[in-house]
């Protein structure tokens, strides 16, 4: 009888996000991926403050060196420190990845929610999505780079112009998967009781989307965000690798890889670092997305 009288819960109540975090922690790959990704971001953005060499400092006397204590990754054909260039390149690559992902996500969520919520627009928006899915993405990106790089560089400066161009080009060619997933979820949500309840007390469409629909489709959006970063980083590197990305003296990981392949026969080890950086970032982000998907899925969570 004594334990019957004790009806107080033994653990304090916790929020939904606590549960999500709890489930996320259990996924070892995702934790590791998250840590690696944070380490890469910190290393790339804080590293240059601590590192003595500048990415564009040319020291012709110490060119083509192998790894040493002064230059852990060696130096390139102009004597620039590879470590510093890797950090500078990473800044650009990750910045492009994050910005392009946000653009694609914003477009995808907008199209997805509009198509799912307003029945009249559904047909036309989904046809548009299908048409965009049938576009040859890489050739089109190459064509866009070729056509718009010089006018844009002239207008807003070479680096910023190409940054805007790459981000916009990747953004408008990769929003379609997000739009499809979000639309599906919105269609299912619209039939739920809480939406009916909200409507019966006279919630306007604007409030309905902002307060009831959007928070509930956040989890698929977050999962496609991680995949979007990976996709954008790979695409940017591919463009730079093909010589149609950033200008030659402006390092990104893809550009460094491209430069390294030109010295493949004499210094094969140079290919390794930028390639490893790209692969590691993408791998960690993919694992992060994997864990996030499990953690945000209430059917799996709590098991």
């Amino acid at each position, binding site marked *: 009888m004594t334990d019957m009288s004790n009806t107080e819960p033994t653990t304090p109540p916790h929020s939904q996000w606590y549960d999500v975090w709890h489930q996320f922690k259990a996924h070892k790959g995702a934790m590791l991926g998250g840590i690696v990704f944070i380490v890469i971001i910190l290393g790339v953005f804080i590293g240059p403050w601590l590192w003595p060499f500048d990415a564009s400092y040319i020291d012709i006397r110490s060119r083509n060196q192998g790894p040493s204590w002064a230059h852990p990754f060696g130096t390139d054909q102009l004597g620039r420190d590879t470590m510093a260039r890797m950090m500078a390149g990473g800044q650009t690559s990750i910045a492009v990845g994050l910005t392009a992902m946000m653009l694609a996500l914003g477009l995808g969520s907008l199209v997805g929610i509009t198509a799912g919520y307003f029945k009249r627009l559904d047909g036309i928006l989904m046809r548009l999505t299908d048409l965009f899915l*049938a*576009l040859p993405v890489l050739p089109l990106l190459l064509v866009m780079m070729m*056509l718009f790089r010089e006018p844009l560089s002239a207008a807003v400066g070479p680096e910023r112009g190409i940054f805007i161009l790459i981000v916009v080009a990747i953004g408008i060619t990769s929003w379609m998967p997000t739009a499809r997933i979000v639309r599906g979820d919105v269609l299912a949500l619209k039939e739920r009781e809480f939406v009916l309840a909200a409507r019966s007390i006279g919630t306007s469409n604007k409030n309905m989307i902002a307060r009831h629909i959007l928070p509930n489709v956040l989890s698929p959006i977050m999962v496609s965000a991680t995949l979007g970063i990976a996709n954008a980083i790979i695409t940017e590197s591919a463009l730079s690798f093909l010589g149609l990305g950033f200008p030659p003296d402006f390092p990104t990981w893809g550009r460094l890889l491209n430069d390294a392949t030109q010295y493949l026969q004499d210094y094969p080890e140079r290919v390794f670092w930028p390639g490893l950086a790209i692969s590691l970032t993408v791998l960690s982000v993919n694992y992060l997305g994997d864990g996030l998907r499990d953690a945000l899925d209430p059917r799996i969570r709590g098991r």
Partner: protein
Amino acid sequence: MLTFTIRRLILAIPTLLFISLIIFLLLELAPGDPMAQVPLTVPPEVKEKMRQALGLGEPMHVRYWKWLVQFFWIEPQVLFDHYFGTAFSEGKLRVISWQHRSPVMDVVVERLPQTLWVVGLSYIVGILIALPIGIYSAYKQYSIFDQAGTFITMIGYSIPPFFTGPLIIVLFSVQLGWFPFIYDTTHEVTDWDSFVYQLRQMIMPVMVLAMQTTAQISRYMRASMLDNLNQDYVRTARAKGLSEKVVVLVHVLRNSMIPVVTVIALGLPAIFGGAIITEQVFSVNGIGGQLIGAIQANDLPTVQTLTFMFAILIVFFNLIADVLYGILDPRIRYD
């Protein structure tokens, strides 16, 4: 089934027109003048004539229509003439490359076999590796093989071909010296030795492209097998005493192949995109290399045609995926 296929075919036409319009408008609205390279000493009226000769003087919709006619009406006629010796296309204007001063399609036809060989072979190799891996890791879920398979496919997914390419060049060509690292397109297979050489030079590009395919398809195969292995019909099949081999490889596999076949057909366009990079890495003289070359030389007709060729390939394989899905899954047909 026939009406289903025909409906899909008709749906493909507006898609292709939309893509052609996007490509056309992209090239049209881009700032930049094809006459920019002409020296300033050339008088304006001569420049204007050159502009007319290039077909740039007419309004936009007229040029779009002319391009469509050239691509969809005159070029097939040329192909027809080539095979049957007729003369339908005689005297008609074809899409001319600014770079080579010859019809674009002639160059494409020269180069397409290279791409198709490398891409096609790598896709087949990738599928042949992926299917057994997917089947076995689903059958032994959470075993060491499955865990290792998951990890390796995740890596295969994450490492881009422009990194694996140089990496295996360093490993197999520079260090070990097993394979040549430049693809010799002029090489002709005449006897056994030249055949072996052809095989050796194809191994590396095929390997790089196959790796991506393998990672993706084995993932789908595993997921699809897992969905089916717990179904009631599997228990029924076991209960009536069928051998494990028959249950897994006949009953479960056939049902699991339905989504995988679609993924295989839909994945092919992405492989063509990957082929652009792989061709660049291994200097394969295919249409991907041609596209890069044309972009660097500012050769707009070639760029336009090649981008559209990629679009046709994508739409074509989407169509095949749809039809295959309809054949394999009767529920789709009556939608």
